[in-house]
């Protein structure tokens, strides 16, 4: 069973009345528990494709189904709720909130759930343990290294136990060692916790971890 199914997706942006096609008629499926790598030159539309799957952007044409939900048919408020439950985001620049501690950053997505304070704490502590940062819970992002920040971000992405993890160049801003640690962590999440992962990367070592690689060029799969 495919957990993500992308059918005949096109996406264009308009500058004034000029259409700028970014994605052209893309179709593919991602089976559950897959570790998919998306590669391609800068500007080829990788981020745009991720955004569509993650439900923060809408395609111009085509449908995207994630875990039996047609994402293109949800309205904005349904999408927000859907994202909170189904998508774990990992960004290139971690995107942690600087005024919140590691613990509070990881807790953020849970504030949208109905969990009690105690349950939230248990979930957050578990996630931070998975990424190996249980001893840094009270640290603020600026007191952490880049690699540690990205691990907090991964903890934030998995704390809600989402359907898929979406990582846009997660090692793009890291040194070699930290990058490897992050990739190992993602691999572990995929193997141990059976998380479906879609990762955009330029990093050949990241490509090694992925089971399938899809190449995007000028908005088309090659």
């Amino acid at each position, binding site marked *: 069973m495919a957990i993500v199914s992308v059918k005949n997706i096109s996406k264009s942006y308009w500058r004034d009345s000029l259409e700028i096609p970014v994605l052209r008629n893309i179709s593919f499926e991602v089976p559950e528990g897959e570790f998919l790598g998306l590669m391609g030159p800068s500007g080829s539309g990788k981020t745009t494709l991720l955004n569509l799957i993650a439900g*923060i952007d809408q395609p111009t044409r085509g449908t995207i189904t994630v875990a039996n939900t047609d994402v293109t048919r949800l309205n904005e408020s349904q999408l927000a709720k859907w994202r909170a439950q189904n998508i774990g985001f990992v960004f290139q620049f971690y995107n942690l909130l600087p005024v919140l501690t590691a613990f509070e950053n990881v807790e953020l997505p849970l*504030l*949208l759930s109905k969990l009690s304070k105690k349950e939230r704490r248990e979930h957050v502590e578990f996630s931070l343990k998975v990424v190996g940062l249980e001893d840094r819970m009270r640290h603020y992002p600026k007191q952490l290294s880049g690699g540690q920040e990205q691990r907090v971000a991964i903890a934030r992405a998995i704390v809600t136990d989402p359907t898929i993890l979406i990582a846009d160049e997660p090692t793009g801003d890291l040194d070699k060692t930290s990058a490897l640690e992050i990739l190992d962590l993602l691999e572990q999440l995929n193997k141990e916790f059976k998380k479906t992962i879609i990762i955009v990367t330029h990093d050949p070592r990241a490509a090694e971890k992925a089971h399938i690689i899809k190449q995007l060029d000028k908005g088309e799969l090659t």
Partner: protein
Amino acid sequence: MVFGRLVNVMKLPLKYTLRNMWTRRLTTVLTITGLALVIFVFSAVLMMAYGIQKTLVETGSEDNIVILRKAATSEITSIIMQDQANIINALPNIAKSIEGKPLISNEIVVIINLPYIKKEGGFGNILVRGITSEGIQLRPQVKLVEGRLFQWGSREIIVGMNIHTRFQGCNIDEKVKFGGDEWTIVGLFDAGGSGFDSEVWGDEVQLAQAFGYAGAYSSIIAKLERRDGFDEFVSTFNKDLRLQTLEVKSEIKFYEEQSEVMAMFIRILGIVVTIIFSLGAMIGAMITMYAAVSNRTVEIGTLRALGFRRRNILSAFLIESFALALIGGLIGLLLASILQFFQISMTNFGSFAELAFSFSLSPSIIISSLIFSFIMGFIGGFLPAVRAARLNIVNALRSA
């Protein structure tokens, strides 16, 4: 209402708001200072108006009535002729003094000019009251604190505490020149913070002679036998055609009316000034909040991606500006409340005489000030919060 709904959609914790304010503490402090200044001025003005009202209203007492010329806003602009006074003194239902005489006092009021102690070369108007022994009994709140009462039939006076502390040469045994004669101060009195504290009292007969007031009075004060006899007294009074140029008021109402014009003037002037000031403070808050939104664009995009709604973002930023306003409001109020320990004096528009009063805080002033600061917070924060809530997620995330 707005606030209740805000709390409902407040998915982001308050510490997020407070720490963001702390992170940019310089702008936070500047913004709060602006808001605090506006609230300081706003509440100070209301406290001043309220202080005046309180002082004047405390001057009147529940049981007393005042008779003045119709349409006279104060005793200074009032005149009652001797024959009218005689009729009034014979009216029924007036309470009796311990000696069995009717408790009614025909008084005159004049304004004199004396130099201030503080302001070099400045002169102030002082209300001098020619009073009777019944008149003194009618003001039980007035107490001699030093010296003695003036002797009837002599050119002696007693002065209120505010006059004693503010004007030159107003001490016991000193002589004051007015009305073509010298008057010896023989006593100081305390009227418990009421308007009488800003008066000078002497024998009515002596003052009337000195000022050529024979055959006329400024006002008549009396106490009714029964408090509920007011309406009856007024109807008897109004039936007499010879008294048609005059009017009866309860003393409380008389002083209330006197304070209204002045308090209203101060309030309106003060509110106009603070609204102009507040434009500056609100623009300051708006600039601060717009800067906060643009500095945190990626953060907003991230929160939205995680599943936070537009209204969660809107409320987070609105609450941030409400927090600025609330802190500013509380600081402004706190500073203004210090004013309670200061007494100032101003010319009373009603009598044109000096009136000393204190800034006075009331629960309704606190509430008005806080509402005003909330309004500033709302106006300053609304547009920036709307901009934050309307950001497109993809564009916000791209702006890294």
